């Protein structure tokens, strides 16, 4: 709680690292993940930094790894993931790694080039095979189809070429080839145009898809054969073929030659196949070996790269022997960091230990909360609004309780809550197995990351559901109702007989004041809502009144709590002026108006019962009248709410009204006075009043130094000097703070005051959403019950079975989709709003920035 309430105390450190040991030290710090390095050379280009060559080498290695990965995936070999996390290798090992990858890549490229040429060969041969097969059919058709030969003859004679019968067909020259199927239509059209229709094209599709040797994609192709006459046409046809990237193959004219060629092609294909298989096997072996180490290599290279990136942010000392880094880290972690640095030095075999100094700075440190699985979800809800300013009160520890609670007030249903709780419980119990799946889908990840929130929301909904006595819109009678209809019937009837009689009656009045009927047994239902209300006609009227008032009570308590959290902020900053000038009037304003209303609500619940309910005052009208000082004389014979209420209410109003100018004026006026005194009294005043903005312990901490080993004397001297400077700077800053334009302070304060006063009223009204959503939820689930499931339940016999089956599945589906998911989301959003706006605007600034330590684990996540 303490850790979560205020962010970790941070400090800016200066690190002096031996040039040789820097790599190992940063590597250790990366494993630790507790240090956020600052870029000391933000103006320098990426390529002008010191370790740019090392980063380039890493890029090159990554490129090779990606190439390997691509090849491995292409062959569908699984990449081994052992889950180990190797340490960043030494710079020396980097060379070995580079050599290994280089060798692998070359080997693979060689194999690929060889395989590609083989495949190309193979493709050509297969295409030739197809051509021979298809052209065979063309020629056969030509021989047998009488019609076609006649046409050919006709063509011949027209051209004036003398020849007879089948011989004429053979005189034509032909070109055969293979073309991509999608290019065929354009190809055909162009052939027609260019040759003016003097060519004859015959095509057939190749049924099996062929592999493109360069890309490995499957492509569909067609075989074509073109008949034409004369040399001029031949060159044109060839040019077009080239233009459309058709591959041409020699196709002998006589059948015998074609057959011979086909046989030789087949044998060559078979030979090629065996060679191809051995090549593929070799490639497989190479890739299999690589797949085993690929992940480790990726991690190693990633770590090296991260380290050099970090080293690039450091300053190099003039003598080049030492790297100077600046980093933010938590004060509590300093020991761990020291240890890591020592380990790093030992690893590097360096004799000179690194030096770590704490520095003082005027810069706002980053905000760092130590979160765990449970709190991280709530913290991210708060961060989504704005990261807390440094050391500001953090609403998230309270949100762990209030958030699910406010959600549950709106969502209160025992049944729905249980379902939600179980779903979340499943996620929580199986989180180890489920964690990897969260990366796959963003929507699922949202639910999964919020599993603890959902778990809490479910648990709280069960509780509120029990209080509302709602389970899928039904009530459960556990303890026995406090109301009875027995008194209205003849005492001699058995309960069964009364039951049948009651069923016949349209509506039954239960009057608590009727002493004879004894409808009210005077022992209230011990926990939650009496189940009798479930069947009563005025259930809504009754629950509305309760829920509305509860909402206001909860809201005012929540807001008041928020104001008190702001007190802790003021106290933490030792800012008494704000306590007096802001906190006190704020509390009085809120308590005087709505605190009083809450007391009245509780009082009314306690004092008024069925007997004197007609005298119960209307609180809202009463509140309005209180501000108008209007007190009606006519009381209809009822006693006043309590004696002397008029006097107290007048006092409260008179107390509230000055609160507004108090908030508005006191703080700026005092500030102005201080400034004037400062101007008169000189610097003396400034030292006597340490300003709230200044870190009270900055001067002390600046002098505090922690270091290892040698160079103590000299550095100690330096640090004391630093400490002095820090005090100077702090004072300077304080002075500077005073010089802020007073007009600006006034305007700021005016806005703040108006906002607070108005928001007190509007925010209280805003909490009524608790009632509205709870009502909506209850009504929706009741409608779903009445309109869907009840219909199925009312039927009898076999048909009833079937109807119930259908109705239940429908009801279950709608329950999950509408009530659990949609309503749950809506209640979630409203709970979120109540926190962000109504609660957090009382104290939360959210102007900080997040602590983002240099960490390998984090870098890996981003990969």
């Amino acid at each position, binding site marked *: 709680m303490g850790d979560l309430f205020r962010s970790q105390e941070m400090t800016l450190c200066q690190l002096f690292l031996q040039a040789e040991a820097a790599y190992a030290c940063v590597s250790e710090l990366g494993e630790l993940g507790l240090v956020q390095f600052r870029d000391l050379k933000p103006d320098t280009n*990426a*390529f002008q930094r010191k370790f740019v060559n090392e980063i380039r080498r890493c890029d090159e290695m990554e*490129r090779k790894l990606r*190439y390997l990965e691509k090849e491995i995936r292409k062959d569908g070999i699984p990449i081994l993931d052992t889950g180990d996390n190797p340490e960043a290798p030494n710079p020396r090992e980097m060379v070995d790694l580079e050599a290994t990858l280089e060798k692998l890549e070359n080997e693979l490229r060689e194999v690929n080039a060889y395989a590609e040429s083989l495949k190309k060969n193979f493709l050509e041969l297969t295409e030739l095979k197809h051509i021979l097969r298809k052209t065979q059919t063309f020629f056969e058709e030509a021989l047998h189809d009488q019609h076609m030969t006649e046409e050919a003859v006709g063509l011949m004679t027209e051209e004036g070429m003398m020849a007879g019968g089948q011989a004429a067909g053979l005189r034509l020259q032909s070109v055969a080839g293979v073309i991509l199927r999608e290019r065929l239509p354009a190809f055909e059209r*162009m052939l027609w145009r*260019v040759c003016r229709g003097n060519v004859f094209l015959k095509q057939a599709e190749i049924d099996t898809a062929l592999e493109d040797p360069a890309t490995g994609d499957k492509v569909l192709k067609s075989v074509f054969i073109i008949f034409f006459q004369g040399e001029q046409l031949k060159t044109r046809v060839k040019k*077009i073929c080239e*233009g459309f990237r058709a591959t041409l193959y020699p196709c002998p004219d006589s059948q015998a030659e074609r057959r011979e060629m086909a046989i030789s092609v087949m044998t060559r294909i078979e030979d090629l196949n065996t060679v191809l298989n051995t090549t593929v096997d070799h490639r497989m072996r190479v890739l299999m070996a690589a797949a085993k180490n690929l992940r480790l290599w990726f991690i190693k290279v990633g770590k090296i790269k991260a380290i050099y990136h970090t080293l690039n942010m450091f300053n190099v000392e003039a003598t080049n022997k030492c790297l100077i880094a600046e980093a933010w880290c938590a004060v509590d972690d300093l020991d761990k960091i020291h240890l890591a640095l020592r380990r790093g030095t030992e690893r590097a075999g360096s004799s000179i230990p690194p030096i770590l100094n704490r520095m003082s700075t005027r810069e706002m440190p980053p905000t760092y909360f130590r979160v765990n699985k449970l709190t991280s979800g709530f913290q991210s809800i708060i961060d989504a609004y704005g990261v807390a300013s440094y050391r500001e009160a953090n609403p998230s520890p309270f949100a762990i309780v209030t958030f699910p609670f406010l959600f549950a007030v709106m969502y209160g249903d025992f049944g729905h809550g249980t379902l939600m709780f179980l779903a979340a419980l499943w996620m929580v119990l199986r989180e180890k197995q489920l964690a990897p799946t969260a990366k796959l889908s963003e929507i699922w990840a949202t639910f999964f990351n919020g599993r603890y929130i959902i778990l809490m929301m479910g648990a709280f909904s069960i509780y509120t559901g029990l209080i509302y006595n709602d389970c899928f819109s039904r009530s459960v009678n556990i303890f026995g109702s406090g109301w009875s209809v027995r008194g209205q019937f003849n005492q001699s009837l058995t309960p069964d007989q009364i039951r049948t009689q009651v069923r016949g009656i349209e509506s039954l009045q239960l009057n608590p004041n009727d002493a004879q009927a004894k409808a009210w047994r005077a022992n209230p239902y011990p926990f939650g809502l009496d189940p009798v209300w479930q069947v009563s006609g005025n259930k809504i009227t009754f629950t509305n009144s309760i829920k509305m008032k509860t909402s206001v009570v909860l809201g005012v308590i929540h807001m008041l709590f928020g104001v008190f959290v702001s007190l802790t902020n003021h106290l933490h900053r030792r800012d008494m002026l704000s306590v007096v000038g802001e906190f006190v009037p704020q509390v009085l304003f809120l308590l005087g108006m709505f605190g009083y209303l809450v007391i009245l609500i509780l009082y009314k619940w306690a004092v008024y019962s069925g007997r004197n309910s007609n005298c119960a005052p209307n609180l809202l009208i009463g509140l309005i009248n209180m501000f108008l000082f209007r007190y009606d004389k006519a009381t209809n014979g009822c006693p006043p709410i309590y004696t002397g209420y008029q006097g107290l209410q007048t006092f409260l109003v008179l107390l509230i009204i000055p609160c507004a100018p108090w908030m508005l004026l006191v703080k700026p006026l005092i500030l102005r006075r201080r400034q004037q005194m400062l101007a008169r009294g000189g610097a003396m005043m400034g030292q006597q009043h340490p300003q709230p903005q200044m870190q009270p312990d900055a001067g002390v901490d600046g002098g505090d130094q922690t270091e290892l080993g040698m160079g103590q004397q000299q550095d100690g001297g330096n640090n004391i000097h630093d400490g002095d400077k820090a005090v100077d700077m702090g004072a300077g800053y304080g002075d500077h703070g005073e010089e802020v334009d007073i007009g600006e302070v006034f305007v700021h304060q005016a806005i703040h005051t108006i906002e607070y006063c108005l928001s007190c009223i509007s925010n209280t009204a805003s909490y009524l959403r608790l009632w509205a959503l709870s009502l909506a939820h209850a009504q929706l689930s009741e409608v779903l019950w009445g309109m869907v499931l009840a219909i199925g339940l009312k039927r009898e016999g076999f048909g009833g079975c079937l109807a119930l089956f259908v109705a239940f599945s429908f009801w279950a589906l709608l329950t999950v989709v509408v009530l659990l998911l949609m309503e749950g989301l809506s209640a979630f959003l409203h709970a979120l709003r109540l926190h962000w706006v109504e609660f957090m605007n009382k104290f939360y600034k959210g102007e900080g920035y997040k602590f983002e330590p240099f960490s390998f684990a984090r870098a890996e996540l981003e990969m």
Partner: protein
Amino acid sequence: MFSESMFSVDAGYLEGLARGFKGGILKKTDYYNLTQCETLEDLKLHLQSTDYGHFLANEAGPLTVSVIEERLKEKLIIEFNHLRTQATGYLAEFMDYITYSYMIDNVVLLLSGILHDRPIKEMLAKCHPMGTFEQMEAIHIATTTRELYDAVLVDTPLAPYFADCINEEDLNEMNIEIIRNTLYKAYLEDFSAFCQQIGGTTAEVMQEVLAFEADRRAFMITINSFGTELLKEDRKKLYPACGRLYPGGLEMLAQAEEVEQVKLVADYFAEYRVMFEDDGTGMDKTLEDKFFEHEVRLNVRAFMQQFHYGVFYSLVKLKEQEIRNIVWIAECVSQRHRAKIEAYIPILE
């Protein structure tokens, strides 16, 4: 007919994307950093920190300018195709129009390649990928313009533009230039008419950009024609008639015989006068560079308005200018010719 209120139904998403891509255009500081580079590796490292990201990360071996250029173009094409495949209706047609100018360039490039008996493969590699079309590779069967039209261009969208230059003459150097300019003239006029047909802000924005393009061509044709055997009447036929020079300015340009006379024509138009003036800063910027700068200004301005298709045109033109800039800087870096490295055209502040 065209209502801005309905614009986003079809093109809102794409406009958003286009504006996003525009956001990735290199800024002044990026260029400043690029010009600081010592080697192409430095250049690559810096480009990694921009929107280009890891576009060069998978290149094995030493980087060359041509690899960089190829990858830059590839990235432009990917972005453009991404937009084009999702475009419908007028926008789809509009984006096709953008590619036509690249087609014209490719046709002319291939023709001149044929004229000099260069292998077609080599020429294809030089073609802009934006203007590829199916029949492109078979272009070398053409020896006369009629054949070119009948065999190759008749199926492409360029066919109607080509109608004016069909004759039986054999192709020669002069011919090809005339073909290029005739095609461009017809293209610009057609594009301009199409934008007017779309109407609305698109017409307004595109009118300005295309008018400038037309005028620039007219000036360049005139200046380049001095000292060639092109007749004045023929030259006049090449001027695109959709610019601000039309009709009076073109009439005067047609009579021009030397650069001074062109200058006189430009004097009548405020925005062109400055192009021909010596700005006196001693920086000897070429006329072409000044035209480029003006074009960039116009295209950046196109982004000031919303709900029009002009952003797509301007995006392509700006990206193209950016590619030219990066290639220029890369050339300078690789040839260690630092004196001229600053001669790129800055796009965004």
